[in-house]
C-alpha cells in the first residue's frame, strides 16, 4: 500500500518570501507523483506532476517540485509567493502499474501575509 505524509498542516509566509511545502511518500512499487491545489470554495486542480524523466518539474505559475527517490520525497517550492497563492496544497501518488487511484497526503494550508 502507498502512503503520503505532508509534515506541515499550515505554513504562514510573508508575500514575496520563498516557501517549501514538504511531501514524503512510502511505496514498495514505483509511483507517479502529483501536487494538487485547492483554492477556497473550489475543486482540486493539478499544479504539477512527475511521471518520468527530469526529476525537477515546474508549473506555469512559478512552483517547482523535485523528485528525490532516495529520500522518497517530492517537496514543492516557490522562490517568491503572492497573495493569490493562498490555498490548500495536496501531495498525491498513484502506482505506475495497475489501478490509478490517487493516494493523498493530509494537505498543507499555505497562508500568505502581506
Amino acid at each position, binding site marked *: 500500500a502507498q502512503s503520503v505524509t505532508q509534515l506541515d498542516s499550515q505554513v504562514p509566509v510573508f508575500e514575496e518570501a520563498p516557501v517549501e511545502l514538504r511531501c514524503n511518500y512510502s511505496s514498495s512499487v514505483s509511483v*507517479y507523483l502529483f501536487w494538487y491545489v485547492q483554492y477556497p470554495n473550489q*475543486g482540486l486542480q493539478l499544479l504539477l*506532476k512527475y511521471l518520468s524523466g527530469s526529476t525537477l518539474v515546474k508549473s506555469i505559475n512559478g512552483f517547482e517540485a523535485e523528485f528525490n527517490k532516495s529520500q522518497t520525497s517530492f517537496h514543492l517550492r516557490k522562490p517568491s509567493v503572492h497573495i493569490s497563492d493562498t490555498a490548500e496544497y495536496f501531495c498525491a501518488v498513484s502506482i505506475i502499474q495497475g489501478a490509478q*487511484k490517487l493516494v*493523498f497526503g*493530509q494537505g498543507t494550508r499555505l497562508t500568505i501575509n502581506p
Partner: protein
Amino acid sequence: EPEVTQTPSHQVTQMGQEVILRCVPISNHLYFYWYRQILGQKVEFLVSFYNNEISEKSEIFDDQFSVERPDGSNFTLKIRSTKLEDSAMYFCASNPDRTDTQYFGPGTRLTVL
C-alpha cells in the same frame, strides 16, 4: 476549457435517507472516480469506474454505496441509507486514459443530520 461538473453543490439529508450525487465528467474521458474528504481529514479514494464496471473500490465503498453511468454523460454515486459519518465533501474526477491526469469537479458537500 472543458471541466468536470457536480450537482448539487450542497446536499442536506436526514440519517437513513438515500442520496444521489451527480457528476458530468469531461466528454471524451473514459475513466471515472469518486473521492471524499471528511472535514479536516485526507482526500480518500472511494471507487474507480471504467467500461461500465467498477475497476477498483476501497474498503469505505461498502454495500451502501453504488455507482452508475446511466447515460453517456452522467456518473452518479448513490448512498442507500446515509449515516452521520457519511458527511463529507465528495469529489468526482475523470481522465481520458488511466495514466493521465485526473480532473476534479468542485465537489458536493453532503451533510447528514
